[in-house]
């Protein structure tokens, strides 16, 4: 079991979701985050104040999967999230110690397998 964390552009979030559904990855959480990954800063001006926006909006996917689904999940994140420009984001894969499905008490692989799969 792994936790796959993908940080992508907000405007690509829908494409990533679509790719994940196609790869039959169903359990997904996402949150809006801000980050900086080496992309060129945007310059914005409000009256006399000019600022460089050092942080960009990103969307963070968190997907807990069984080992067989790690590669398909990574592929979906890459396919859906890539534009080729700096700032497309990163994927982190970390081991999972334990997973519990709250409704049934199922644990580990059974808990990360979608209902009905």
């Amino acid at each position, binding site marked *: 079991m792994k936790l796959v964390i993908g940080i992508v552009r907000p405007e690509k979030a829908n494409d990533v979701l679509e790719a994940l559904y196609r790869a039959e990855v169903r359990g997904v959480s996402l949150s809006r985050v801000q*980050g900086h990954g080496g992309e060129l800063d945007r310059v914005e001006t409000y009256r006399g*104040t000019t600022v460089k*926006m*050092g*942080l960009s909006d990103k969307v963070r996917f968190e997907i807990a999967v069984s080992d067989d689904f790690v590669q398909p999940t990574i592929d979906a994140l890459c396919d859906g999230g890539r534009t080729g*420009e700096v700032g497309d984001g990163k994927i982190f894969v970390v081991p999972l110690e334990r997973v519990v499905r709250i409704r049934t008490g199922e644990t580990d692989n059974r808990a990360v397998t979608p209902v009905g799969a």
Partner: protein
Amino acid sequence: MPAQIDTGDTAWMLVATALVLVMTPALGLFYAGLVRGKNPLNTFMMCISAIAVGAITWAAVGYSLAFDGTGDLVGGLGHAFLKDVTFEPRDEMTIPHLLFMAYQATFCILTVALISGAVVERMRFGAWLVFAALWSVLVYAVLAHWGFGGGWLIEGGTLDFAGGIAVEMGSGFSALAAALVVGARKDYGRQALLPHNSVFVLLGASLLWFGWFGFNGGSGFTTGQNSVLAFTNTMLCPAACLLAWFALDAIRGRKVTAVGAATAIIVGCVLITPAGGFVSPGWAIALGAAGALPCYAVIVWRPRTRVDETLDVLAAHGIAGFTGILFIGFFAQQNWNAISDGLLYGNATQLKWQALAALAAPVYSFVVTFALLKVVGLVMPLRATELDESIGMDVTQHGEEAYASGEGAILVSPEAGIEEPVPVADSA
């Protein structure tokens, strides 16, 4: 008849002009609420820029082409750059000529802003400015001449109280052409593109209704009976349209929606725009209720097509204006308007002239707008790049965000230039 200024009329028209002008920012708010959260500033700016562009083109040549003389198709250039537009009233009017010009300018401005609803979220701001300037002269001024200024429709006998021809059909059918030439947003039909702030939508629509009392109530140019009738009908017709819309919403989706209500306010105001000073209050209520149906049908049908006429200007203005113009042909009443009866009261000729207007205005606005945008498109790109469109038009067109938090923003002092600020995120 010697021209004589009436102070009461003039006072009302000064207020009415300001009321109509505020409709354009109100429309900006309405439109801004309907787009996604990355585009409200650009959407609002398209409306604000219509004031900048439209007021100037109107003073330069638009007013003259619309209101100088009684040429069949277009007016003259006698009033170009406001030549001879002074404090003396126009023939048979009781307000200063200058005020009449300013009042009419606010109509031109609003109509230009209306079309932006068809192309929001992807049209380049620069290309929009160029289009807006040319459209205000080539389409609006010509249609205003036909309907108000002494052109073939008004001289023939078409009744159009406040702009069913130039404003409503002019914007609605131009919007359809603009949507076709500029093309759909890249995510259209693939993703749900939802309004990001429905409170803005309701607030904008309500403020538009408020301004509409000056739009319709001022279009008699006096404080006389036609103005009072139009003013009152501007309350009754949208109210009836709201009730009808509630019913249609409830039948279709079992719930009465807020964005639907905002749309109904606009549709109701548009329906009564041409008819305001010509039909009885009872018929105004009937118009609001019956006119909701065709507009509702088009609003439900349009998103199932490939035409991304984004904010449904065609349905809310084109179809509603068309309906209102035809309605006059049936239900106008001489004992209310002192001018003419419709078919129901024995005057079939009125219906003929209303039908002619309802055919000519859509054809002219669609064809000329289509050609105009094709030509502008040869000179400059009409659309933002796909990348810019996906990042959002606020940041890419204006370098601002509607909802900037300031988190991660590094102050750039003007004299230091923007070469080497320290990114705060890296210090962690």
